[in-house]
């Protein structure tokens, strides 16, 4: 389903906070450095990753860094 995001960005991501284990590999891998670990704990006691909210280019690198099947969804601008 097409979604609309902030003006300048070429992409954005969604993180499922309950699936995330706070390993930080996505934070490390993100080229744009737009991810961080939340100071809050999720239901399982991990600090889940969070998107800063801007600056993502939709490259998908964080998705491949992440060991969880569905913790990250990446969206990218069409054309």
């Amino acid at each position, binding site marked *: 389903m097409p979604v*609309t995001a902030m003006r300048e960005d070429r992409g954005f991501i969604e993180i499922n906070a309950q699936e995330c*284990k706070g390993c930080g590999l996505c934070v490390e891998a993100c080229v744009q450095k737009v991810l961080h670990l939340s100071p809050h704990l999720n239901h399982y006691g991990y600090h889940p990753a969070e998107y800063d909210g801007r600056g993502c280019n939709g490259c998908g690198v964080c998705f*491949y860094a992440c060991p969880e*099947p569905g913790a990250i969804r990446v969206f990218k601008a069409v054309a």
Partner: protein
Amino acid sequence: MPEMKQTHGKAQCFYDTYERKGELTHQTHYCPGCGHGISMKLLAEAIDELGIRDRVILVSPVGCSVFLYYYFDVGNVQVAHGRAPAVATGLKRARPDSIVISYQGDGDLAAIGSSEILHAANRGELITCLFANNAIYGMTGGQMAPTTLLGRKTTTTPFGRDKIKDGYPLHVSEVLSSLEAPVFVERVALGSTKQILAAKRAIRKAVETQVKGLGFSLVEILSPCPTIWKQDPVEAQKFVRETMAEVYPVSNKCDRTATAEPHPAPAPAPDLDELPRILKLPAAAPAGTAPRALREDLDCRIKIAGFGGQGVLLLGQLLAEAGMDDGLEVSWLPSYGPEMRSGTSNCHVRLASKPVDSPLVTKSSVLIALNEPSLDKFLEEVEPGGLVLYNGDEIPEDARRQDVTMRALPFFEIADEVGTAKAGNIVVLGALLEALPLLPAEIVDRAMARVVKGEKWLEIDRKAMERGRQAMNAVVSAVVSAVVSAVVSKEAHCHA
């Protein structure tokens, strides 16, 4: 405002939620930062991209990746430690249209399962193996694996892996690619984004190699195990990239995909019905004619013992062969052991209506003792109510039991009368079957005709058999009812 579309997300061949314990239905069981999760995702993408989900059978190992079946909505089999390539071989041969993918850790594949992977690769099985090398036993808490780096401390190498004492890190991909059969072998790593994307391509190519029917493929994946390595996930990833990859060069080891011809799966095993023809066996015998009680609940455990040359083993073999012809479940276990050196010999035979659990007879319902030492040795293990046949004129006084039926007959002397003492074992057979109608005479005769070589011998044996029956008949006519209870399964007793 540009329009956005999802480009990456959970692969379709994963379940939406996982049937794990309690509430943990939307997380994997791996530790944070574990490489198994990433490998699993790469495999899932390959399956989705190739559109083969309905054909995939995934073989999970023993190790931290044991639970693949919780996650992958494909055919799943979980197998004993190290055996994945052997089971995968069977699955692929039985179902040539399926895509069989095994997944193993380095303890599983390179230690206990080293022979399975070596031979599957050497046979060029049409399977795809993913080999997650984290250089340690993860699941069991960090013992040395064959792949552990030199100097690494593990619970079993507390001073570090020592090449003199513990050998060198095993380079599985290099070993396998030295074989002639494998079509695609590559080592990849999960140490950086670049490495992960290369791993994705290699895994897809390995699976494709099977889809195209080209032959054996394997991808070794250098994989972080932050928990056991006692590193945080980012450090562990760096260790893969900088230290492991130094010892285990990340590169393609063998790629014959361009030249390999699709080769047909090995011919399937012949139909069971075909076996008698192939093995030149006579057609199936008619159903047995033993008394009903014996046929339905039979569990006859026979021990035959004597000295070498008395035909102990052949006697057992005849019973088992005839039992098989009669549609019974049978086993025949000749005992070879140090005792053979002193010239004694024994065998264990089971004839039963239900599948035989063990060929070993430790409590016998029938003991055939062809000499005194054998009687002394095995009399004690005969079950109360059982039958003992002893080769002699009478049972020695110090070897008598009141709770079993004991009969003495000079079997070998009787055999002498038909021409040769060598047929003594067949006299025993005749006597036994007269005392206990375990098997129909015509079926025993047919088995004998097959097992005994030479017309002349067969003729002698037929006479010996008849004499055995007569001799037993003269001694006792109603042994049967006395011992039937000993050869009927215990279960049947309970039901009765």
